[in-house]
């Protein structure tokens, strides 16, 4: 398998996230076959591949939903065991899942802090502490404001909000808590043009704030516009890595579908 030109010369800093030889099996299905990748701060890395190529599996392994069967994950050069989603979030890795992982019955602020509620007193077990509701409402409102996300109401459950507004809430939630890596799984797939534009702007902002952004998408225009590097997976293997541009868009597509000649 001939990999395309690597982009390793550009970035001198060490990667904030490195995955080495990741292996994952689901019964007879070999979903990841020794995949390695690196992500750097202030950079958008596009993770490309056809359906079933292993993109979502890889993201779920990094975010702690699945455990790796082989290989390792390094954060800032340190080997890190990520056994569950809470551990990933604790390590500074935020994920915006394809289904958004939003709670329809909760308000935007409640969604923001779900699973890491501001609470007191700290000597009690987490579940028994009392919620600091006003602080959470205030902080969440400030973030929503800063990111210029417009919501119809701040105290209504997100069930009453449009696809774009919900996506914006999920991305904004990642923005607040990310300290190292943000992964977004097809964040614009279900959106109209204007709403997608908003989300792309949010992603650029995440990058500018110094996060490593890993973006899964099928939209080549978004890849060319935003991504500094692209890693292509096919059938659980990494088949290429290159700097996307208008010029090599076709090369990217052939890597994805395996029609390379």
């Amino acid at each position, binding site marked *: 398998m001939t990999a395309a030109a690597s982009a390793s010369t550009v970035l001198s800093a060490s990667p904030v996230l490195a995955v080495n030889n990741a292996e994952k099996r689901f019964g007879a299905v070999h979903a990841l076959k020794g995949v390695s990748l690196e992500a750097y701060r202030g950079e958008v890395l596009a993770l490309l591949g056809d359906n079933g190529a292993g993109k979502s599996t890889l993201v779920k392994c990094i975010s702690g939903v699945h455990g790796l069967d082989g290989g390792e994950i390094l954060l800032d050069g340190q080997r890190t065991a990520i056994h569950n989603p809470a551990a990933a979030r604790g390590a500074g890795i935020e994920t915006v899942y394809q289904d958004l*992982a*939003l709670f329809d019955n909760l308000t935007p602020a409640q969604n923001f802090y779900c699973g890491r509620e501001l609470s007191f007193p700290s000597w009690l077990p987490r579940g028994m502490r009392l919620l600091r509701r006003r602080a959470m409402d205030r902080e969440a409102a400030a973030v929503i404001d800063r990111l210029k996300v417009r919501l119809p109401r701040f105290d209504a459950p997100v069930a009453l909000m449009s696809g774009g507004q919900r996506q914006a809430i999920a991305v904004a939630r990642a923005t607040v808590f990310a300290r190292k890596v943000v992964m977004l799984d097809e964040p614009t797939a279900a959106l109209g043009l204007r709403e997608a534009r908003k989300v792309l702007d949010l992603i650029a902002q995440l990058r500018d704030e110094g996060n490593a952004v890993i973006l899964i998408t099928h939209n080549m225009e978004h890849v060319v516009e935003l991504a500094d590097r692209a890693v292509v997976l096919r059938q659980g293997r990494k088949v290429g890595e290159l700097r996307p541009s208008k010029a090599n868009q076709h090369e990217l597509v052939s890597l994805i579908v395996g029609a390379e000649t």
Partner: protein
Amino acid sequence: MLVKQRPDAEPAEVRTRPLADGAALGVALKLLGIGPLLILILLVVGISLATPNFLKPVNLGNILAQTAVIAIVAIGQHLVILTRGIDLSVGANLALATVIGGLVYRLADSGPLVMAAMLVAGGLVGAVNGIVYVFGRLPHPFIITLATLSIARGLALELAVGHTTMRGMPIEIAFFGGGSTLGIPNSFFVVFGVAALVLLMARAMVWGRWIYAVGGKPEAAVQMGIPVKWVLVSVYVISGLCAGVGAIVLAGRTEAASPLYGNLLELDTIAAVIIGGASFLGGRGHIGHALVGAVMIGVIRNALNLLNVDVFFQMIAIGAIIVLAVEADVLRNHLEARVRVMQSGRAS
């Protein structure tokens, strides 16, 4: 081409829908929200016009006393339903708790001891429900709580060795179940106390927020790092404890234990939660729904008694109201979807 961009369809009817439509949707959703309370008020007004005996203090006291057990157990049931679950074992659990209380009473005439025995018995059955459901990886709590319904009822009959009633309860228990203060049944204060405690836990504590998250979207709750398994176990334990409190009240009112108590109580409590307006789909509802629903059931039964309507018709009436309540839930989801569409139309 595989990766060709879809031509995203812009919402065509952005400005064509009048604003009034949105306002109407909002009003409709609000009405659905307070609907059960409105219906309860209308019921009370209607019934008091139909039969003057209804509003007499003695009768109101009766309603409160009769509703108390349903209300207390429904409070636990509502937590379970919030997590998309169901607890079918509460009635049998309550009966078992009274019998165990009755056995302890024979050994020692101590109010605190008998109460503790009933609470522990209730909590233990709840713990079995929760632990087997979660760690036995059952797809739904229906089966395990159905099993404990059978086991608890059988155990209660076995322990009562053929007696259908075991007479006698310590005076403290009789006080909570049968006594009254300033003309108000003490069981009312028990309901109030349980409600206040559970309300505090569900609304002010992190744990309560987790219950709503687990009910709203279980997969997302896992992704957000919430200890979903323990949250689930906890609601079944609390439902069991509520059955234990219900046992204290019922045993106190009748000054007896019985393995036959609480027959069909699971249906009454589930009906109360749903009639009161909580969603059967999980994640939506609060303690007010359980209480309004319980009172509604009590009021309907009482009124039909006063009006000399036979018992079979009562069952039909309550069944019909459950259908209405579930339809209202479906309608609410439908209206919310409409609101969502309008929002994406307006987003710019």
